[in-house]
């Protein structure tokens, strides 16, 4: 068991203007499951591949269990990786696939057999040991890939979007299985995904990346409650937080008719009078008559049964904006209905309008 440290790690692809991963600082505790999440090209896969040793490191240092592994070959890092497409050898049986790494490492045959049998039992693969991957379902293939990682008994598991090739239902089921397995084995795990729901449900902590830069690294709840900047606010959550452009007037932020109070510390942190106001979909309440409100017209209603969302067009003082609002699923309003909305006091997130950074609470 070991912790993993990224110390100021940078990766620059030849010919690229900006680094794929820029001065990344990340400390992953022993036994922790950390999810790297971000949009396409944010550097999350590059980060994982640097940790695996499949990718060079242009600056900084990577440590596993206090050993500097920056220049260590992949096989000597004591890690195991689950690939997005699983990389199961089509010409080998399930048994041979799971035992392949041990065979290359010259582990005695009886020991290989013992570990493969054990892994197969744990993953319900025992009946399929003699089959080739081509004859397995997507979920079974995924488990074979997991098995191949488990038998190495590594210090760290690396998982590169291991669920993206499964259909939606199986993905949810396998997600919980992976979580359970990881808790049981207690092996430090770095997990890459572009799916923020997967990140929030699976990770002990979540690292949000964008354009090669770490945006926030925290527990899922904290990321949801206190997003560090507008990128995290807009990326995490489904539907994401509404971000509205406002302006500081005196001590208040003004968004259309609304005025929102600010603290002294917030005002001092601002780089200009532009403020971005973030409101979660469930943080809107109907405004009383005469109260300042955002006047909105419902354009589309998404009724999911237990939840319902209204997508509105809102007039922000001349400029029209889309707004997603959670509504009561038992009393879903009609399309075209007019809503007068205001954010619940205390449920407003304020960000610097220029830099996007969260203002102090």
């Amino acid at each position, binding site marked *: 068991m070991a912790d993993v440290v990224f110390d100021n790690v940078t990766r620059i*692809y030849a010919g690229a203007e900006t680094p794929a991963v820029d001065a990344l600082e990340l400390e992953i505790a022993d036994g922790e499951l950390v999810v790297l999440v971000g949009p396409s090209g944010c550097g999350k896969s590059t980060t994982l591949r640097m940790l695996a*040793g499949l*990718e060079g490191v242009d600056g900084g240092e990577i440590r596993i269990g206090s050993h500097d592994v920056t220049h260590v070959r992949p096989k000597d890092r004591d890690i195991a990786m689950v690939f997005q497409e699983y990389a199961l050898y089509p010409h080998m049986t399930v048994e041979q696939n799971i035992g392949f790494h041990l065979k290359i490492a010259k582990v005695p045959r009886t020991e290989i057999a013992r570990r493969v049998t054990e892994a197969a039992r744990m993953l319900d693969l025992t009946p399929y040991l003699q089959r080739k991957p081509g004859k397995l379902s997507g979920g079974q293939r995924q488990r074979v890939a997991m098995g191949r990682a488990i038998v190495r008994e590594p210090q760290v598991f690396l998982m590169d979007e291991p669920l993206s090739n499964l259909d939606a239902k199986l993905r949810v089921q396998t997600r919980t299985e992976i979580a359970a397995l990881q808790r049981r084995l207690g092996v430090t795990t770095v997990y890459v995904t572009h799916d923020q729901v997967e990140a929030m449900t699976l990770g002990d902590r979540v690292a949000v990346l964008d354009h090669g830069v770490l945006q926030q690294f925290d527990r899922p709840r904290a990321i949801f409650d206190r997003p560090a900047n507008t990128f995290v606010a807009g990326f995490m959550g489904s539907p994401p937080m509404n971000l509205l452009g406002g302006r500081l007037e005196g001590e208040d932020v003004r968004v259309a008719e609304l005025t929102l109070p600010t603290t002294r510390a917030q005002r001092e942190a601002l780089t200009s009078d532009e403020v971005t106001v973030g409101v979660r979909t469930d943080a809107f309440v109907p405004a009383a008559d005469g109260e300042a409100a955002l006047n909105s017209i419902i354009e589309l209603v998404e009724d999911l049964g237990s939840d319902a969302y209204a997508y509105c067009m809102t007039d922000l003082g001349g400029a029209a904006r889309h707004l997603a609002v959670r509504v009561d699923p038992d009393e879903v309003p009609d399309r075209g209905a007019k809503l007068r909305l205001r954010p619940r006091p205390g449920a407003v997130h304020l960000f610097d309008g220029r830099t996007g950074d969260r203002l102090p609470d």
Partner: protein
Amino acid sequence: MTTTTHPSPQVRRGTPAPGTQHHGVLRIIGTTLTWAFASFNVLVLLFMLFSSFKTTKEIFRAPWAPPSSLHFENWSQAWSNGGFGSAAVNTILVVAASSVSVLVIAAPAAYALSRTQTRLAGGLTVFFTLGIGIPTQVTIIPIFVMMAKVNLVNNLFGLYVVYTAVSLPFTVFLLTGFFRSLPGRLEEAAAIDGAGVVRTFVQIMLPLARSGLVTALILNIIGLWHETLIALVFIQDQDKSTLSLSLLSFMSTITSFSDNPNWGALFAGVSILVLPMLALYVWLGRRIVEGITVGATK
């Protein structure tokens, strides 16, 4: 999903991954040999080109050196005395006519074979492929006798007919595979729009298959440009000879009938045969290589 999941091996990186920089002795030897092999190919072609501008004496005295002065008379001697001029015209005419004709015949057949799911179509596809395995040396005697009966021996039209025929199995094979890879949806769309089968073929499928047709055309041009055995058997007169034949007879003239053979002229003749195809390769190299490998790897 992510941009770095499958970096192609060609992608040049910054710092390489650990371990990949480790140059084994084997790797160094392999790389050296590979470069030596590639250099050999380049040097041989350069030698050919250089020698075509040299006197015989100079070729033997300094074979690897560039020509000290350009002896263009080698080229004119090959072109007129060696008969390469008329041979070039003959070759271009026959090769062009045959490689186009075989497309006209093979394309409809390949289309029908690839789009009809009957046992007959399947069998015929295999039947045509069989022809690739029948070497010319087996069929050339009967074909010669047959063509002699209709007075098409020692005749460029006869050569054109035979060239068209011998190119058929490979062309059908290549195009069948190509048509099969085209989506069937488009034909269904055309049918819904009211186009008949012939119209669908001519107006929808042929334009779509253009790259496959061009590949087949190029490969046939290359193959027929180099063809020798059939030409050797079918053509006797010098004014009907192809470039391959001219080169062979020029070589016999300068090596056996002359005390002072002009090797420079021979290499000029060689260049006349080689340069058009090398130019084609420089122009369309990628497509040629893909066309040749696609049949085997698909």
